[in-house]
């Protein structure tokens, strides 16, 4: 109790210095948490991806499409239950900053994605309207889309102004599902291309392959790729999760940089905190020597310093952790649609707490050892 009182009063002795250090800690631990959440957000799509679906794409690059006639041959491979087409549209809604994913898909696409929940009535309405489109709940909420609204997109990959009518809004089967995308009929895209750019028609971005058992995914993927070996468009088939991770791998350097920056922030605040504690301990050398003179052991002195460091870090780190939901919400708003899932995980909060603890210990260890070792007669001569 007495030690706690002494720790708190010592921590509040230089209120400005302690206040600035707490603010520094708050900013650093908050920045660390946000950067970790950015990394998590990057992987969120891959984590939600399934191992029971295969993605077949052009082996050279995702940029190159596959012929339409591959569909029937893929469907014929043993273990394949269904095949859906999907092409990345890449349209712009009002302004490029309003980015969201748009896919031209075949109707059976929804059968392969049971995590997208759509009412039968809306599904039928979409199937009846070739210009109809479906939007996810998150996307609809973001831009205020309602069933019946006309959604105009300016094509970038497929030039021209495209108009779609919202025929349904699908929900995610759970809160973790990303529903910030829009999908429309692949046939509508293809028929338009047949009229305006014939050479680009009858091509598919990727095939989504439904399989009987997830265990057989590797063998089916090998069988699909073997079917098209030595053709003009060789394929690369992998699970959806591997496909997503491969996508993320293209950003590996960026993710690594974000991770490094997040730890650099912690190292910097560690140095700041260590300086604060070293200054405080140096100023109190005579007091520590007095305590030792009275009979207090070096361990008591060391605990005083570690305790003060821990108290300051607990305050700064605690405030940062408490502010995380609000900061993440603000960040999500600021980042717009770039991070459909931007949720602070418990692991991130635990890492923040661990960082605050590590800062407290690292900052206190040298001053604590020094104060514990200082000779009384030398300490008593010190002037704070």
């Amino acid at each position: 109790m007495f030690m706690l009182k002494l720790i708190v009063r010592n921590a509040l002795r230089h209120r400005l210095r302690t206040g600035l250090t707490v603010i520094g800690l708050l900013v650093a631990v908050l920045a660390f948490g946000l950067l970790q959440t950015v990394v998590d957000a990057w992987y969120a799509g891959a984590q939600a991806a399934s191992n029971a679906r295969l993605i077949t794409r052009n082996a050279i690059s995702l940029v190159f499409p596959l012929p339409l006639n591959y569909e029937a041959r893929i469907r014929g491979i043993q273990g394949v239950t269904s095949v859906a087409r999907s092409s990345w549209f890449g349209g712009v809604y009002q302004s490029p900053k309003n980015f969201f994913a748009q896919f031209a898909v075949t109707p059976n696409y929804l059968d392969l994605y049971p995590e997208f929940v759509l009412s039968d009535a809306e599904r039928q309405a979409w199937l009846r309207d070739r210009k109809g489109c479906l939007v996810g709940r998150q996307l609809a909420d973001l831009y205020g889309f309602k069933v019946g609204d006309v959604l105009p997109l300016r094509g970038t990959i497929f030039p021209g102004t495209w108009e779609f009518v919202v025929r349904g809004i699908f929900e995610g089967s759970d809160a973790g599902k990303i529903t910030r995308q829009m999908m429309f009929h692949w046939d509508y895209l293809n028929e338009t291309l047949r009229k305006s750019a014939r050479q680009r028609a009858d091509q598919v971005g990727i095939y989504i392959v439904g399989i009987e058992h997830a265990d057989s995914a590797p063998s089916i993927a090998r069988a699909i790729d073997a079917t098209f070996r030595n053709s003009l468009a060789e394929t690369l088939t992998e699970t959806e999760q591997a496909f997503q991770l491969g996508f993320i791998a293209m950003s590996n350097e960026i993710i690594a940089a974000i991770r490094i920056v997040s730890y650099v922030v912690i190292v910097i605040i560690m140095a700041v905190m260590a300086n604060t504690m070293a200054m405080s301990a140096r100023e109190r050398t005579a007091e520590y020597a007095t305590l030792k003179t009275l009979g207090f052991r070096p361990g008591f002195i060391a605990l005083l310093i570690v305790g003060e460091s821990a108290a300051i870090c607990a305050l700064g780190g605690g405030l940062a952790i408490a502010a995380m939901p609000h900061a993440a919400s603000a960040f999500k708003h600021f980042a717009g649609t770039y991070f459909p899932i931007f949720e602070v995980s418990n692991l991130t909060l635990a890492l923040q707490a661990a960082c605050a603890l590590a800062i407290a210990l690292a900052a206190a260890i040298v001053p604590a050892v020094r104060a514990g070792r200082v000779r009384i007669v030398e300490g008593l001569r010190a002037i704070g």
Partner: protein
Amino acid sequence: MDEAEPFIIIRRLFKAYRRGGQIVPVLNDISLEVAAGEFTALMGPSGSGKSTLLNLIAGIDKPDSGELRVGGIDITALSESELADWRARHIGFVFQFYNLMPVLTAFENVELPLLLTRLSRAQRRERVGLTLAIVGLDDRKAHYPSELSGGQQQRVAIARAVVTDPALLVADEPTGDLDRVSASEVLALLRRLNDELGTTILMVTHDVHAARSARRLVHLEKGELSTEPIQLRD
């Protein structure tokens, strides 16, 4: 401890410091005895080794050689942790600059040494209250050191030194930072403690007026005891 044995026994004590690779002798073949209940003033010019001698007797520094017994205990044989316990039980300290904890009130400062005892909180409070009353500061117990005058701070320091009822009170220039009036009050208090409680007091001072408060004067000159003890006070 044998009743007839002096409270402090120093025989052939040597102490030197290393400064810049050189060995500087501070205490050279010191021998001294102090009886229990004595009030002794250690005088001498700056650098004569009087504070060093006080530190050795109080167990916050160690001699290079020689015999040093306090209260029947050879303190040169004690380890650092044993010395810490011994100091907490037997020695009270008064410093020139008071050395109070600025974040603690007068009451809490006086209570500090009692935290190392087995006394209950209530017993500690009672004893602190009594000690503050003895030094005439029971109305200032909630004040922080910065809210007290120099003389009052030194009286708090004396209260802290005697609250554990130590066998030996060591005071290093206790009036060195005080005005004449405050210094007289502090010296009067030390005399009272010596007279009424029988506390053995060893005081380093270079102030003749302060030294007159003691019953005995020991003079140090260049690390050596220069004369036989002088009687100062009846």
